[in-house]
């Protein structure tokens, strides 16, 4: 079963790569640059999804006190950091080519940086705690507490400032501004990245459980 899933994911992502560069047409005005959406947007989506997973597993830990939930939570934060970095770098490259600068504190850049800071703070907190259960409990409290800023970052700040960022797929108008071929490749990339995240997350949290605690082998 696992082998079929893994092979399937490999084939799926290969098709996404071919589709992104050969099948999907380019957007008017952006030309070849528009192909970045098949990689940048899914990376940003996974960075946010990872935070959601970390938070939900944190809540589970606080309810059940099982260290496996802590391993799932911290593994999600690790992967979230990686994908937030990828989204930030690809986004900055796109910004440089289209807006002329790598960084201009666009609301979406601000949001991904805030997320990145939450992830980094989470690791500093874990680093100071030796006892596995106390570390799990306080990390879970922090990751859930950080969720309280999400409504401000996602809903309030981006509306208070002017943005140059292309409108997101799920925009307020509820309409999709993409031709069917682009949309197909885009949705396939989203699904593929989500699958890669699920696989990496599964490997990582089980490894942490085997290593005992935080993956530092003690």
């Amino acid at each position, binding site marked *: 079963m696992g082998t079929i899933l893994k092979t399937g994911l490999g084939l799926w992502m290969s098709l996404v790569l071919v589709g992104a560069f050969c099948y999907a047409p380019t957007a008017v005005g952006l030309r070849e640059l528009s192909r970045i959406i098949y990689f940048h947007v899914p990376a940003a989506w996974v960075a946010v999804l990872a935070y959601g997973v970390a938070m939900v597993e944190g809540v589970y830990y606080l309810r059940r006190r099982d260290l496996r939930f802590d391993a799932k939570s911290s593994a999600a934060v690790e992967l979230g950091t990686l994908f937030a970095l990828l989204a930030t770098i690809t986004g900055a490259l796109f910004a440089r080519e289209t807006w002329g600068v790598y960084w201009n504190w666009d609301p979406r850049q601000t949001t991904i940086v805030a997320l990145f800071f939450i992830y980094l703070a989470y690791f*500093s907190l874990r680093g100071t705690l030796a006892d596995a259960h106390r570390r799990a409990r306080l990390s879970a409290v922090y990751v859930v507490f950080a969720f309280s800023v999400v409504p401000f970052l996602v809903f309030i700040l981006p509306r208070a400032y002017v943005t140059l960022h292309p409108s997101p797929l799920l925009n307020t108008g509820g309409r999709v501004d993409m031709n069917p071929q682009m949309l197909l490749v885009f949705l396939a990339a989203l699904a593929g990245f989500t699958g890669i995240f699920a696989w990496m997350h599964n490997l990582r949290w089980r490894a942490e459980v085997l290593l005992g605690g935080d993956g530092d082998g003690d």
Partner: protein
Amino acid sequence: MNYSSIWTAAVILQKDVKTELRSRHGVSILILFGVTATMVISFALGIPDIDEAVAAALLWIILFFLSVAGLGYSFLREEEQMTMDGLLMAASVEGVYLGKVLFNLMLLLVAQGAVLPLFILVFNLQIGPWARFLAAMFFGSCGLSVACTLVAALVSRTGAKGPMLAVLAFPILFPLLIAASADTAAALLGAAGEGLQVLVLYPGVVGAFALMLVKFIWEE
């Protein structure tokens, strides 16, 4: 969270104020920090007239560091004197948290009473509508206190000292600091701003999360 928690909060506040009046340790650190930071910035810039947006940003940077430098004591002192267990036996943890939030807010407001006049003086600021400026200061301070108090409670349980509070509080305070400096700049310019609703909502939302989570911090 019920009426007894609010009563507890009032008693904790009274206790902390009484302790503070004996030593004046916390409030003097906050004031000195704010005054030092203001003077250093003023000296480094060398000019009295700076852009309103820059002044507002500098003011909130000072207030951020002042909070993370000074508000950590609230729980650290209880842990060091080993009085936290006693407090938790006598009162609900939510009540203790609320009391500390009120005390920290009071510390921040007292410190601002000393720092703001100096800041306005050295940077030669013309305040537009005073009510808007003071409202931004007040609600921004509520947000600082609500968020820093919970993070201070977390940090007091780690054994880490120093910059830990700043590292952990910064991501939480990020939207508050953006909104507060934007709104303060608007108040300085006398322009219509729209940040105040964020400043009013923030302590409510973050405080609700804090009240939900604070019981897990001391639970072994």
